[in-house]
């Protein structure tokens, strides 16, 4: 991997000393430039940046909606630039639907779909997919599960039977289940070696607790993984994979007339079982009442991984657009306040950011970064400066920058067939209105300073945030204590993960 600037985005308040010294050197530079002979007769005027042209418009191809004979909705978008097609069979059930005591079932069920299906073995499925040059993925999130195919359009006909087998007729062979179980148990073990993996897991566990679904990662725990049987997976699959609970999303170099008969052939005879396919959304977790600091010990760590936050909002929040703008200002872009402070101004980190993880139920809001061990306390102080500071009215320039960043960049998020289908998935899973895409820019541009301030007061209450710091306890704990942020509890990784 090459070394890159971080893709995590962060931000800006004016740097202090750097600006001062920079200005001094600027003077010298100008002096030298004045002495240099002219190089070119027609130099462009660089004194002000060129004006921007008109805002781009999103010309989203029509979403053509059809229904197969079994009632399965089909959403199709034509995109003819490249001879590829994306076909996603989505069902509205995910880790949200894991039964109590069986956290990880949705995730394992999805992962097992291509480990044996119809009359095909796991190896046969893999061989066929690869030979076709296809990508076939089976996975789940908290809110949905999906089988996703990306294939050259010339091979669609050969690939669709695989999609149908994998999604509708998985066989869940015991040997493959045992193999995946061991793989996942080993991955849990490996995650504990990595502070950047431990931090989000510990944060979720300490915020939501062991009983709430969001307190445990999607793959579950060592105990639940050890308990799953093929019968568990079969039951979960037949309950959740039903046409009434599904949507087929197609994007690419096809027309509705050409592709619909193919879809009907392979998926039209799918019949579901009667009954409730999806559980009700998870009850929101209670908010912490006061600030609590947790130091999770990883001796020798070169950086401390910090996560600060509490329970955020559901995707259905009426404040969605305001929160997008707010978070862009706080920690959702490179020039956001957190990145600007922690990275550009202080150099404590390679990048700091914040995020509202919005699901059907309220997921976490968190700010985070990896910071150098010997600056952990200083970094925490700056995190809280920014988290407290967002409560004051944001600047008009800052607001405009954030709104334009979101609104003007929006049309580019529909570039590939994968992009298009991902956007449509959001619309399906979160029941977004028909006009969602066409109204997005208008909704972002309507956000005001007052709305951001009100949202900050409601959703960013740093005095009630939990703080998780995964790092070298003996080095960092005294400095954190001295900050006086709140009660501090030190714990081992195992304790933080509830083991």
């Amino acid at each position: 991997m090459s070394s890159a600037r971080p893709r995590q985005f962060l931000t800006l308040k004016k740097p202090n000393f750097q600006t001062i010294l920079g200005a001094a050197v600027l003077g010298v530079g100008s002096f030298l430039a004045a002495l240099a002979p002219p190089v070119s007769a027609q130099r462009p005027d660089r004194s002000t940046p060129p004006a921007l042209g008109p805002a781009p418009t999103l010309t989203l191809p029509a979403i053509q909606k059809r229904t197969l004979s079994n009632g399965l909705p089909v959403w199709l978008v034509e995109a003819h630039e490249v001879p590829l097609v994306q076909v996603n069979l989505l069902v509205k059930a995910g880790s949200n639907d894991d039964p109590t005591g069986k956290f990880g079932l949705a995730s394992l069920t999805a992962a097992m779909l291509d480990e044996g299906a119809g009359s095909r073995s796991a190896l046969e499925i893999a061989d066929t997919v690869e030979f076709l040059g296809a990508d076939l993925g089976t996975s789940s999130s908290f809110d949905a599960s999906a089988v996703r195919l990306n294939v050259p359009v010339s091979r669609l006909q050969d690939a669709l039977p695989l999609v149908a087998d994998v999604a509708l007729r998985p066989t869940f062979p015991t040997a493959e289940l045992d193999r995946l179980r061991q793989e996942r148990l080993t991955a849990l073990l490996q995650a504990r070696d990595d502070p950047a993996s431990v931090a989000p897991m510990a944060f979720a566990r300490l915020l939501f607790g062991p009983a709430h679904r969001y307190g445990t990662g999607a793959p579950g725990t060592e105990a639940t993984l050890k308990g799953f049987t093929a019968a568990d997976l079969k039951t979960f699959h037949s309950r959740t994979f039903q046409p009434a609970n599904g949507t087929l999303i197609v994007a690419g170099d096809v027309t509705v007339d050409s592709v619909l008969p193919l879809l009907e052939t392979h998926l039209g005879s799918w019949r579901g079982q009667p009954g409730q396919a999806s559980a009700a959304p998870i009850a929101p977790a209670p908010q912490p009442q006061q600030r609590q600091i947790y130091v999770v010990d990883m001796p020798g760590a070169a950086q401390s991984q910090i996560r600060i936050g509490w329970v955020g909002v559901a995707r259905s929040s009426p404040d969605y657009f305001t929160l997008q703008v707010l978070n862009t200002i706080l920690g959702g872009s490179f020039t956001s306040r957190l990145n600007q402070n922690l990275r550009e101004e202080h150099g404590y980190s390679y990048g700091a950011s914040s995020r509202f993880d919005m699901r059907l139920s309220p997921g976490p809001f968190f700010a985070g970064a990896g910071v150098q061990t010997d600056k952990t306390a200083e970094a925490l102080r700056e995190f809280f400066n920014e988290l407290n500071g967002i409560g004051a009215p944001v600047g008009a320039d800052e607001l405009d920058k954030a709104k334009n960043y979101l609104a003007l960049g929006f049309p580019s998020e529909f570039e590939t067939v994968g992009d298009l289908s991902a956007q449509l998935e959001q619309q399906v899973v979160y029941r977004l209105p028909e006009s969602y895409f066409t109204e997005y820019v208008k909704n972002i541009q309507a956000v005001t300073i007052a709305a951001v301030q009100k949202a900050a007061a409601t959703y960013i209450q740093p005095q009630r945030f939990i703080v998780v710091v995964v790092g070298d306890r003996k080095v960092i704990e005294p400095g954190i204590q001295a900050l006086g942020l709140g009660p501090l509890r030190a714990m081992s990784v195992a304790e933080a993960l509830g083991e």
Partner: protein
Amino acid sequence: MRRFVVLFIVLVAVPLGAQSPAPLQVTHQQFRLANGMNVILHRDTTVPTVAVNVWYYVGSANEKPGRTGFAHLFEHLMFEGSKNVPEGQFDLLLEGAGGNNNGSTNNDRTNYVIDVPPGALELALYLESDRMGYLLDTMSPARVDGQRDVVKNERRQSYENQPYGMASLELDKMLWPAAHPYSWPTIGHMEDLTAASHSDVVEFFKKYYAPNNASLAIAGDIDFDRTRALVEKWFGEIPRGSDVDQIAPPAARLTSVQKKTLTDKVSLPRLYLGWLTPRFYAPGDSALDVVSSVLAGGKNSRLYKRLVYDMQIAQDVSAFQQSGALGSSFLIVATARRGHTATELQAVIDEELDRLRRDGPDAREVQRAVNQVEASFYRRMERVGGFGGKANQLNAYAFAGGGPDYFAEDLARYTSLSPADIRSAAIEWLPPDRRIELVVEPEAGR
């Protein structure tokens, strides 16, 4: 650290096979400004986006002793302001226009990407040209200090604090002779990052950041004539610099097996096997990509199937040809399951390498790999911007010397391969007696 823009390593590709293939062609204009800067333009109006992609032909291989990591540190400084763009404004102006930007450095080159709506094309060219022409006017020791700290934290995050991170730094040291510029890490040694100075920045900029050592590719929703005029307007005035000398690396050849064991804060042992292989686009390079797929691409690949699927003594296995301008390396990496050892993994890997050298792959294995490569070429046609888009690929091909639209020729390097070619590559380039063997063992107590 990968040393080139891995052409296929992401590899999942797409097959066209018997059906009539769509034309794999990226129509473009290419011209050179009077100051020597290469310019490539490509029009794609799928979405209202323009990708502005600049390659400077300098990477960590150009660094001098005691200043490892400097090319990458310099890359960071390119975002910190120039004569007419005050510190912080580069990112603020682009975000305010709905754009994104980034940069990356490897052994051979440094690239900068800006993706913006079409209305901000001129802004992007203004910003790129100002830092190409006038970076030093406002450069200061304080700016160097600021990004030095950021880069040190990048190193901590990506290596020191990353499981197995230090092993990836060790590999290059074992593979390449000490005087070879690929022997040191692009991220640099901590003490060299500490030593980097403002005067190094001045010297480096003057030597390498001239228009005649750069190539600008613009792809997306553009008008050719207007874009060409804008490029001439903003870049035409920047003076040509001196020619850059070619790097003359010492010969690199492994003559025996070199072994080393490290310990790390990890739970499971990991094995790395490495060989030196042909440079990018040289004979053998594409065959080794296919070898990597035959060995470790997918459930049916030879190493995955035995180690992970059947025996279940490994958690993962991967193999890849890391192609570079001065040479390449081929790596096989496998992590042992609890209760198993790197030695066990190595025994199985050697059995499979022996079998591949002896019998070669079967036709279906090769076709499966080639079909995936083929599909990946079409997937790369979808996006104009970022590190994986067409603008960057046009520059990558131009850098490698084949001309910007080298897509079809590049694909032909794969479709023309036979099982015998794959076997020959494995015999010639992956010998058992000239390679490195690095093992990472868990620290005591784990």
